[in-house]
């Protein structure tokens, strides 16, 4: 039976959240059958923890050039691993690494590709899975079926439930030789600037308050930040706000930004372009505050307030403080 191969990342001995989401999604691929689940691990680090999540084989390529992400080196290693594992499906996280690699990997393997997968369902016979993904910025939903194998898949972050550890777990590690030369890395990372994260990470926050064009300028985010502090949430933004330079790109929620699935999402001054809505479909309660009663955001919101956010947010902040005794 053909294998399922997921590119896993190990942080301090534990599989990353996105890796566990891949392993969670992988379980849906076999249509009830149990295809052997394999993980590709690049670089150093103890991958033993993966066995507890149902991984039977870890394919590891280790080389000093794989310590940090570099596309040319990662691609060579993944092609070697795919040759060894002969997977039917290759799963990558829909993050800055997986999105960077997926299409190039598919090209090199002669594989099909489906990106941004949000659901996996077996077909009638249970043999070939169907992949659901958003299309047209979330205005439509597409079901894609593979016509050839292997297929490279990227899973939309925060969409699949992470795999749960079960028992001690046993597996084997297969080492794959890659023989990388420094000259093969054709682009080089020279600097990484992490944005100072104050408080909760946007992707992990149970409450997210986002601002858009309707805030009228960067100063509008002060009120949002205050509300976020009271609700112990994180602040996000629409593309309009990040493109205007009001807040950093890392705060963008939406199709090209981050996918969030908080319990509470408050959209302030956000019109609700499909590009933005695509990033919040997993939110359980959506509140929209907007001056324009016709704004499309009210179509996806559960609770709506039409008005000037500068008038509405101060009493909201005060009442939340009161309610939470904060």
């Amino acid at each position: 039976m053909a294998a399922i191969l997921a590119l896993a990342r190990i942080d301090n001995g534990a599989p990353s959240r996105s890796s566990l989401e891949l392993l969670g999604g992988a379980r849906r691929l076999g249509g009830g059958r149990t295809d052997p689940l394999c993980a590709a691990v690049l670089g150093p680090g103890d991958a033993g923890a993966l066995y507890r999540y149902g991984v039977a084989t870890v394919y590891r390529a280790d080389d000093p050039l794989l310590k940090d992400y570099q596309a040319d080196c990662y691609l060579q290693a993944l092609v070697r691993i795919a040759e060894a594992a002969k997977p039917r499906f290759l799963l990558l996280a829909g993050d800055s690494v997986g999105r960077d690699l997926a299409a190039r990997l598919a090209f090199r393997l002669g594989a099909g590709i489906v990106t941004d997968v949000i659901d996996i369902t077996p077909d009638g016979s249970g043999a070939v899975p169907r992949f659901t993904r958003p299309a047209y910025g979330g205005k439509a939903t597409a079901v894609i079926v593979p016509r050839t194998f292997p297929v490279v898949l990227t899973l939309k972050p925060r969409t699949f439930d992470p795999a749960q550890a079960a028992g001690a777990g046993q597996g084997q590690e297969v080492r794959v030789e890659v023989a990388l030369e420094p000259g093969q890395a054709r682009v080089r990372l020279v600097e990484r600037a992490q944005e100072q994260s104050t408080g909760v990470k946007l992707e992990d926050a149970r409450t997210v308050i986002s601002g858009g064009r309707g805030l009228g300028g960067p100063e509008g985010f002060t009120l949002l930040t205050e509300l976020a502090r009271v609700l112990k949430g994180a602040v996000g933004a629409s593309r309009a706000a990040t493109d205007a330079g009001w807040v950093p790109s890392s705060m963008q929620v939406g199709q090209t930004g981050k996918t969030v699935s908080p319990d509470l999402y408050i959209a302030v001054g956000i019109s609700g372009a499909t590009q933005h809505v695509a990033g919040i479909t997993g939110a359980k309660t959506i509140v929209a505050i907007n001056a324009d009663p016709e704004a499309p955001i009210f179509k996806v919101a559960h609770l709506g307030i039409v008005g000037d956010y500068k008038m509405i947010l101060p009493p909201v902040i005060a009442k939340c403080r009161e309610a939470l005794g904060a």
Partner: protein
Amino acid sequence: MRIAVCLKQIIDPELPASQFKIDPALKRQQPDGHPLVVSPYDENALEVALKLKAETNGRVAVLSVGEAAAVSALRKGLAMGADEAALISDPVLEGADAFGIGIALARGIQKLGAFDCVLCGCESGDWADRTVGPIVAEVLGFPCVSFVTQVGRHGDRLRLQRVVEDGIEIWEGSPPLALTILSHESNVPRYPKVKDIMAASRKPVPTWSAADLGLEVQQVGRAAFRTEVQELTLPSRESRCEMLNGGPDEQAAALVARLRERKVL
């Protein structure tokens, strides 16, 4: 420096969802005479290219795969400041997948000459597969950096700013390079001037068929599809929004009460 930018013409993605209709046979959006635009990130890519052109005294070419109407996307590119344009148009390529489009664009770029940089939007405004740019890079044998917002010359190398989850990364590489471009305050597309629009309308734009590029139908047509769209449906869109009315204080009180009921506060 010679820079090629791939442009895709799409139905205006900003149209409201109420005007969005699906062609059930072709499993794509019904054109319905809606305005056609250059896919948003592709315009950001062109803006980055034009800045790099100014910095390096370079030349910019724009290419598109599409129907005859896509020539207007190329003319917009010319009006914004591109120097040359070429349209790749062939019934064989209609509905081609990302691999077919990527191969066709790469062949078109090769036909135009040798390039130092190939830029694409990071995703299209319709299907957003994020595949064509990297595939063009692979066909050309170029390294590829995705989600780049700014490009500048740094000695004989290019210095790239790339957006990742928790911040930005600076990458460097020597040409040739392929990049996919993300929107940013630094690459807001310029508005073409009226006189440039007029001049662009008179520039020749060659149209190439698949055969002109040496492409075989089994390489790029339906037979080459590795995946297939089986269904395209509209998500259910019942408005379920409860509007909270009154003055700001009443609205705030109602909101807090509802959030408590929903146990999210």
